[in-house]
């Protein structure tokens, strides 16, 4: 019996073979099994994409057509305690363009066992506040520059510091770490900063003042809001703002499941394969939330093209399109003059291998019926004739 199945191992994917092995009822006769395998193989063959099928264009149409319906019903969840989420077409465009700065960067932080199953959401709030970024300006009441000696004085809000479990020492540490070239004096309720350089001007002092406002004194940089929520018997933290690298360092965080919606961060921290999966997940999430039905394989193809080069590339004239080998194809997309001039400078050759070029010169496109060609050359006749 095992022989019959293993015969098909080369022809079917291992996943299908395993599934057959596991689900086969006991005592199947060999002839029956043979029939089953043939039927499965037949189904498998029909599911395959045919040579010359224009998968890219079909994907584009399959995503693009429901996309036209999407523009109309984009919802904004106004007034709901959930955070701002970019949804609908704007989000899809954001993903496909491969934008680095997102409209609403977000993270879903999963926690390790004892934290995730805590009974009260309040306990989690404490943890969440540890992650939330606190800047110097959040715990201070006043920043003043003395015109006499260009010293900067920062006054603190003691109550807020207590709330956030911050001591003067911790704050002082954070500032000295992130600001170089300044002497800092602690006057209990305030700090006085004085430049070590002698040629300090008022302008410099002003710039430093603006700079130290943004100093991170606590929490993870970039996380501007935190929201602990319960999701299926488990507490997770949703954040506005994203910093995957730093969040994964935290002890309480379950690094296996924690994600961000910033695909670039995923690419940098977890690699290109993870980024590919993230693109698929994010696009699918939007399409699903709109109640549309798009086959994942179309989205997978898009994600593949964005990731094949090993780095993340958006579907823009700077990204995927600039990688096209044909000058005419690139020129027909956007900024034709730029492409033609550059092609002229280096003497580029267009081999007319793809669709658009052939439409332009009015030749059959190498797709479907236009793909097959004669491979055997008829032997040349001897004598005068060619």
């Amino acid at each position, binding site marked *: 019996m095992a022989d019959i199945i293993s015969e098909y191992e080369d022809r079917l994917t291992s996943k299908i073979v395993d599934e057959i092995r596991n689900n086969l009822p006991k005592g199947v006769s060999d002839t029956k099994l043979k029939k089953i395998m043939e039927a499965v193989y037949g189904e498998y063959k029909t599911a395959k994409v045919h040579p010359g099928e224009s998968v890219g*264009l079909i994907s584009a149409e399959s995503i693009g057509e429901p996309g036209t319906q999407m523009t109309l019903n984009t919802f904004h969840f106004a007034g709901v305690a959930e955070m701002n989420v970019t949804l609908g077409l704007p989000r899809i465009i954001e993903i496909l363009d491969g934008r680095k700065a997102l409209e609403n960067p977000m993270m879903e932080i999963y926690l390790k066992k004892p934290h995730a199953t805590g009974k009260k959401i309040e306990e989690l709030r404490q943890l969440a506040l540890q992650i939330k970024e606190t800047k110097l300006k959040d715990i201070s009441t006043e920043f003043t520059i003395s015109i006499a000696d260009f010293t900067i004085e920062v006054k603190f809000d003691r109550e807020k510091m207590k709330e956030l479990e911050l001591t003067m020492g911790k704050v002082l540490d954070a500032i000295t770490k992130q600001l170089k070239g300044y002497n800092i004096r602690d006057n209990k309720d305030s700090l006085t900063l004085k430049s070590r350089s002698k040629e300090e001007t008022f302008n410099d002092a002003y710039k430093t003042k603006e700079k130290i406002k943004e100093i991170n004194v606590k929490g993870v940089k970039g996380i501007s809001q935190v929201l602990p929520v319960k999701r299926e018997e488990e507490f997770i933290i949703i954040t506005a703002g994203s910093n995957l690298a730093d969040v994964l360092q935290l002890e309480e965080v379950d690094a296996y499941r924690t994600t961000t919606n910033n695909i670039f961060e995923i690419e940098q921290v977890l690699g290109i394969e993870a980024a590919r999966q993230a693109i698929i997940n994010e696009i699918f999430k939007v399409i699903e939330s709109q109640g549309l039905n798009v086959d994942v394989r179309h989205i997978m193809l898009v994600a593949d093209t964005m990731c094949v080069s090993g780095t993340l590339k958006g579907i823009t004239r700077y990204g995927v399109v600039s990688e096209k080998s044909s000058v005419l194809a690139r020129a027909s997309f956007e900024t034709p003059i730029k492409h033609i001039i550059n092609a002229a400078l280096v003497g580029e050759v267009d081999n007319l291998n793809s*669709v658009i070029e052939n439409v*332009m010169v009015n030749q059959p496109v190498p797709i*479907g019926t236009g793909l097959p060609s004669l491979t055997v050359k008829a032997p040349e006749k001897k004598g005068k004739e060619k």
Partner: protein
Amino acid sequence: MAEVYLNSKFAGTVDNPIEFVQNIREERRKGSVSENLNVTYKDKIGQVHIESSKGRARRPLIIVKDGVPLLTERHIKQLEKNEISWTDLVRQGIIEYLDAAEEENALVAFFENELTPEHTHLEITPLAMLGYCTSLVPYGNFNQSTRLNAGSKNQKQALGFYASNFAVRMDMDVNLLHHPEKPIVNTIIHDISDYDKHPAGQNIIVAIMSYKGYNMEDAIILNRGSIERGLGRSTYYRPSIAEELRYAGGLIDQVCVPDKDVKGYKTEKDYRFLEDDGIIYPEAKVKEGDVVIGKTSPPRFLSSMEEYSLASSTRRESSINLKHGEEGVIDFVLLTENEEGNKLIQVRIRDERVPEIGDKFTSRHGQKGIVGLIVNQSDMPFSAAGIVPDLIFSPHGVPSRMTISHLIEMVAGKVGALAGRYVNGTTFDAEPEERLRKELLSLGFRENGVETMYNGQTGEQYQAKIFIGNMYYLKLKHMVANKIHSRARGPIQLLTRQPTEGRAKEGGLRLGEMEKDTFVAHGASLLLKERFDSDRTVVPVCESCGIIAIKDNYKNRSYCPICGENTEVNDIEISYAFKLMLDEFKSLGIYPKLQLESKY
């Protein structure tokens, strides 16, 4: 103290603004200040604005003093007897016009019984909130507002009796309805505006039912018998205009039958309708391509005259002829002079338009539709009394659009037609539906307007009772005859050799980018190539330099402009647009080299 602004310019200050404003209003009502003046006191910012500029939207209201309107029964009686007029009321300070700003200072009551001592004005009629076209919709207060908008928009496009001197007018692109009627269900605005002097529709019998699905999706079905009796018949008028222009050097256009040696001479047949003066005669039946006004122009460039001075005439043909798809009868010829003193010829062409499939009709309730089928009268459904509808309207048009007025008009029209009277359907002030139903019952019909109907083809009785009634229908100016267009082959553009665009130029119907994508998605690449063959060209290409070569069919040789004759030249098939692009590259100093390869 308040600042005073006259037409938005600072004019001074007053100590007691309320009294000041009141004084101006009193004076205006007395007539010592222009009635076109409006004054507003904005107490929150302490400003008085006096406006007399033009272009403000103003509306009339009845003035109220101490909770009593100034307009009394006596005035109304005098108005009815025609002893006083509207302007008298305005002059007497009984009615005044407020602009948007002064309305902010007024408290306006809708009805007389709502009046309190605080009120300053009383609405004349609720109908005043609607514009002219909207008030022409009967029972408009039963409608959704969007339908009222659609209804009033449609009425502007209706064909009718637009001017009684139409016979001597030269209007561009006008239509005239042949048998216009005054609506049975009318509004007060119909009376006020003398609608019977310029009606724009016909009272017809409408049944709400389906008929073989030919009135799906807003289509309507017409009775051929009704059309043959003149329903919706109209005439389309279009003038052709020619002018004897003067050119530099004393040259002038000439209206005449062009000589045969004129450059661009058509055929003798095309000029067959022209009389000796070069102008067509009235009542000639013309078709596309026929010359209406024969005209020749002097040559475009004087230099070309010297070159071919041997030829006696080098004048150009510039006649006015009927464009593609046009036809009709010459109706009227007019000879005049224009402002510059040039001879001006205007020829009016008339074309009778009998309703056909694709013409647009509408009721007055935003229920427009296209004729989907014209049915012989013998095949139309009929009622027990033998009444055959002129038009069948689809029941699916009603629920989602909620045009209740459409339904009420059918009942009201039925009552009006049976009782031989007009029905007042003025919005907010119409004859109540209740009364119409009672009257319909007393006339021997079902009070809800439905009737037992019979299938016109089989004679079988329909199971459902059909809602049938009389209503006012309008023919809209959008007729297929002006829009129909198709092309198999035809003119191409000079530059790209691709088909021209648009009906006027007999253009092709574009197979666009997205349509192209569908061919690619199906893998139908050879079909795709065939579809884009419209600008196909075969060009010779030099194998060594890759530039388009020259083929001299006369001497039967090919040569390359760069490499000369000692090079291999082969033909390739490309789109002309691509060849054009290569030429444009060359003009930019880019060398587009074609590398040829054997196809097989």
